[in-house]
């Protein structure tokens, strides 16, 4: 059974998704796609895929990521033909930040509730995306996997210091707070946003992956690449990535969410 294709002006995108709770008490990841049946919208807005990884005690992390995804998709759907995709992504992100912040404030947990967010729009003119936090966006092309977005973590900042020779790699590697986020959605203003101006060419055979950190903390990039190579379409890849991640049986396996979108030439 093949995944239904979504035609984007000659290019076909076959999206797949898989999710698991891991060894946590709650599922705090959320994900979504824009309406794949709305060809009119896709023609100017592309198909949007989004993953969000929430944080905040009790069920509030789940609320945060769910509100982030829902608000982002609702706001992005208001895009008109004249609005550039890049601008729509930024506008939707700002709305998501405000909505999560308002929720955090209403339960008296300002600064304790928030979410990462990675959203990508697939259009014929290319892939455009926006990212906050430590969820990941990969592109698999020409037999290699490349991470496109920068993680907003203390570890990433320490890596900069190591590169500049101001810190030893050993020191950076053992910092207990290296996984702490330096930017997230829901603080009422976003400190760091990864939001490139250029679009990424999409061509037949490419696979684009959006995932929460639960995936890449369980599997190395080599392992991810190997699994993708062997997968015929997005759903097969997503299922295989999830299964392999869970098979690692890590003691504190985080929630895992993975979206895989295979790109192919639309057969006429």
């Amino acid at each position, binding site marked *: 059974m093949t995944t239904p294709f979504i035609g984007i002006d000659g290019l076909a995108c076959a999206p797949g998704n898989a999710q698991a709770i891991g060894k946590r008490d709650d599922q705090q990841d959320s994900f979504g796609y824009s309406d794949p049946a709305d060809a009119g919208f896709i023609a100017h807005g592309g198909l949007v895929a989004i993953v969000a990884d929430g944080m905040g005690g009790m069920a509030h992390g789940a609320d945060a990521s769910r509100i982030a995804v829902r608000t982002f998709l609702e706001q992005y759907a208001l895009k008109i033909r004249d609005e550039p995709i890049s601008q729509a992504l930024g506008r939707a992100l700002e709305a998501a930040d405000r909505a999560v912040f308002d929720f955090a404030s209403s339960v008296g947990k300002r*600064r304790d509730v928030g979410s990462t967010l990675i959203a990508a729009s697939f259009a014929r003119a290319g892939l455009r995306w926006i990212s906050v936090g430590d969820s990941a966006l990969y592109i698999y092309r020409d037999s290699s996997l490349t991470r496109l977005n920068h993680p907003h973590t203390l570890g990433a900042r320490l890596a900069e210091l190591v590169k500049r020779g101001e810190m030893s790699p050993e020191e950076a590697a053992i910092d207990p707070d290296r996984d702490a986020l330096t*930017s997230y959605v829901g603080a009422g203003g976003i400190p760091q946003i990864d939001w490139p101006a250029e679009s990424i060419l999409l061509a037949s055979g490419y696979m684009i992956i959006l995932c929460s950190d639960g995936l890449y903390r369980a599997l190395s990039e080599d392992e991810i690449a190997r699994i993708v190579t062997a997968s015929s379409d997005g759903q097969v890849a997503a299922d295989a990535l999830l299964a392999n991640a869970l098979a690692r049986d890590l003691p504190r396996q985080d929630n895992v969410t993975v979206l895989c979108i295979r790109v192919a030439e639309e057969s006429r």
Partner: protein
Amino acid sequence: MGCMTDRGQAKACPTCGFDEAKPPELPFELPIRTVLNEQYLIGRALGAGGFAITYLGWDIRLARRVAIKEYMPSALASRPENSTQVVPHSGPSRDDFNYGLERFLDEARMVAQFQENPGIIAVTNFFPANGTAYLVMEYLEGTTLKEYLKDRGGRLPFEEALEIMTPVMDALRELHRVNLLHRDISPDNIYVTTSGQIKLLDFGAARQALRDRSQRLSVILSEPALIGHPEGRLRA
């Protein structure tokens, strides 16, 4: 009810122009002249933040103005028309509302700890009513540091900035002494009174610092949010 001075027989207040007959600006405001706790008369709403409404109030017993903050999260609850009751929406909102109410009490207790500190807003009462809770504070004439800065073109000379920030730092030292972190120092939360006093407001994000450093931090915001909320713009 706009400034709590006697307007005599006039319809609109001669001092501040407030007209009680005009409909309320903010959704879900308490009706003007509501009496709370047999002690406080509710006046006009001073502002709302999506999860709380702050009113100008009159302390009937002590005959003085107060500011009263009401927990009223508009996403989780609403107030029926002509009623004083706050009613949480059904389902998970009810749990979230109750949770938020507990946090509001925590916030009140935290600020109340620092009554002697002149750099921190004074709290005079906290009580439940109408299905929610109310925090009664001293009423301050003045503006936030944010507005103050805007009026001054966005920049202050060093001496003046130091004059403003020194009471803030003194207040923070007191918080840190008891292992509390404010976590939301910003021009929004610093008040400059007309008499030149500086007060720290809003302890909504304050928390006990982690004593146990074996616990990892999940977030370090290493710089303050660069974009104001909600009228700021994103940085690309």
